[in-house]
């Protein structure tokens, strides 16, 4: 018999057939991750209208906020805040709609029951969604940064490239960890999921400091740093990307990197716990296949 964990031969009994070794479990879940990420990676350039809207919508926001800064005769460096915010917005929108609300869509399309009947962990599906979504959003964010920087002549000033890279990656891990947690919570919900994802747009733009540093928010900034990886990550990235603009950070970037590590661990663990809990609850209440709620 081949060494492939997928090679199938006759088994002596159903019990023997169902007894998977760790290698087979791992390989199956890795394939699930790849399989779920694949349509997002391949599809990221396939549907032209999606590319347009996923870039155009955040970029329209960037233009609007840049013009507000100009109307206020703000220092030119502040315009970079809006461009950076627009790029990170692409990730947040992806986390919200393509992670948080994805299982809700999947239920409507009939994919959710396939996930549950397949011999894989649902965490692998979420991880695959995150990997594919991250790639898709990164392409959009890069374009928004490039367009915004060229159009509005944004000047960046980076002194600590390594720390910037680390903080950026930690921000993405924490953000997509939060997305996985939201997907777990939304598993149980019907239309509430869609409406709540909607609700997490503008309030998060405000608390997350998407277009103005969270330091301006006063005491609310502490709340934002406590719950929103977007707020922590963006504050650190902004300080590291515009190091020549003084006094814009709420906390030093090194401290914010530590907070992001803690958030990443917490969100991934909570996602796993919530997924198990809500899966059991949804099965018990027969909600996994309920559509058009």
């Amino acid at each position, binding site marked *: 018999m081949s060494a492939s964990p997928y090679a199938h031969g006759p088994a002596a009994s159903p019990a023997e057939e169902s007894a998977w070794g760790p290698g087979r479990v791992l390989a199956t879940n890795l394939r699930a991750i790849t399989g779920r990420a694949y349509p997002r990676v391949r599809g990221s350039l396939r*549907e032209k*209208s*999606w590319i347009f*809207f996923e870039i*155009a*919508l955040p970029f*329209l*926001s960037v*233009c*609007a*906020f840049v*013009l*507000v*800064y*100009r*109307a*206020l*005769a*703000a220092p030119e460096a*502040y315009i970079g805040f809006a461009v950076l915010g627009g790029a990170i917005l692409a990730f947040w929108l992806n986390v919200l709609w393509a992670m948080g609300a994805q299982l809700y869509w999947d239920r*409507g*399309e009939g994919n959710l029951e396939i996930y549950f009947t397949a011999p894989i962990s649902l965490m692998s599906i979420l991880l695959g969604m995150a990997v594919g979504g991250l790639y898709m959003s990164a392409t959009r964010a890069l374009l928004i940064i490039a367009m915004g920087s060229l159009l509005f002549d944004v000047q960046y000033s980076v002194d600590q490239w390594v720390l910037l890279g680390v903080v950026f990656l930690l921000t993405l891990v924490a953000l997509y960890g939060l997305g996985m947690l939201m997907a777990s919570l939304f598993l149980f919900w*019907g*239309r*509430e999921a869609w*409406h*709540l994802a*909607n*609700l997490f*747009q*503008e*309030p998060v*733009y*405000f*608390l997350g*400091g*998407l*277009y*103005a*540093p969270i330091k*301006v*928010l006063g005491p609310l900034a502490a709340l934002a740093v406590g719950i929103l990886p977007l707020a922590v990550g963006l504050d650190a990235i902004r300080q590291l990307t515009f190091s020549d603009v003084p006094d814009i950070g709420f906390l030093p970037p090194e401290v914010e990197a530590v907070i992001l590590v803690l958030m990443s661990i917490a969100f991934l663990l909570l996602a796993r716990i919530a997924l198990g809990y809500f899966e059991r609850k949804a099965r018990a209440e027969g909600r996994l296949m309920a559509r*058009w709620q």
Partner: protein
Amino acid sequence: MPAGDAASQPGRGASAWRSLATGARLGWAIESNWTDPFLFAVYSVARPVAAALVLVAIVWLVSGGGRPDYVAYLVVGSACWTFVGGGMAGFVWAVLDDRERYRMLKYVVVSSVHFLPFLVGRASAQLIAAAAGFLVTLVVGVVLLGVPIQLTAIDWRLFVPVMAVGLGSIVALGLAVAGLCLTIRREAWSYPEAIAGGLYLLSGAIFPPDVLPPALVPVALALPTTWWLEGVRRALLGTPTPEILAGFSDQMVLIALCASTAVLTLVSWAVFRTFERLARERGLIDQTTGS
């Protein structure tokens, strides 16, 4: 049809009104019955209030609270914009939800319901929710941010017609986009956001049209939303927007709003009817695209 039966049928106007009312009742139920009234109220007002606060944070950052005039400008603009976002999205989601999700659009079209008034009613629920967002954003602006709006000082003779015609222009725009959505796939959900985003830039919602590149200023002045926002600001705040718009009297603002809305309404009606006919001819009304 026997004469007696014909006499018992409601007139066209009454029938259209009944279609509109039915659509409104259905739309309101779908919009609001997913949760308890408290959460629905929070949901309805959190977005517009937060959208205004994002802009106020920028003003604080740049001026340290030294531009109360601009804060007032932003708060009124953001409050009004809830109608544009809600109104446009209401029409598009009415088509997409009924066609793709609830799969009821085909039954609505073949029934005796008047489709256009039904759609207006169906979408009006989001306008009602937007009204709550509009009011609460203004209250937050007045109470927390010191926006100088006083009930006794509001120019109601300007506010009422400007608001009525302005909302009419939003309904007209929504109708055109809804017509377009009848012929395209499910990703049309992005259209209202994209169109509202474009109008947000051009209509002076959060900055005066003078800030735009010069080539875009005439476009801004051709939009009913620009005159609607200007009229509402004048009625509530008592002062015109500086620079270009300050050169127009209140009457001229109202006339420009009515003229641009009339043109938009005619074009939107033609667009809706054209796309509706195309959708019927091509059998798109009962197609689910699943894209």
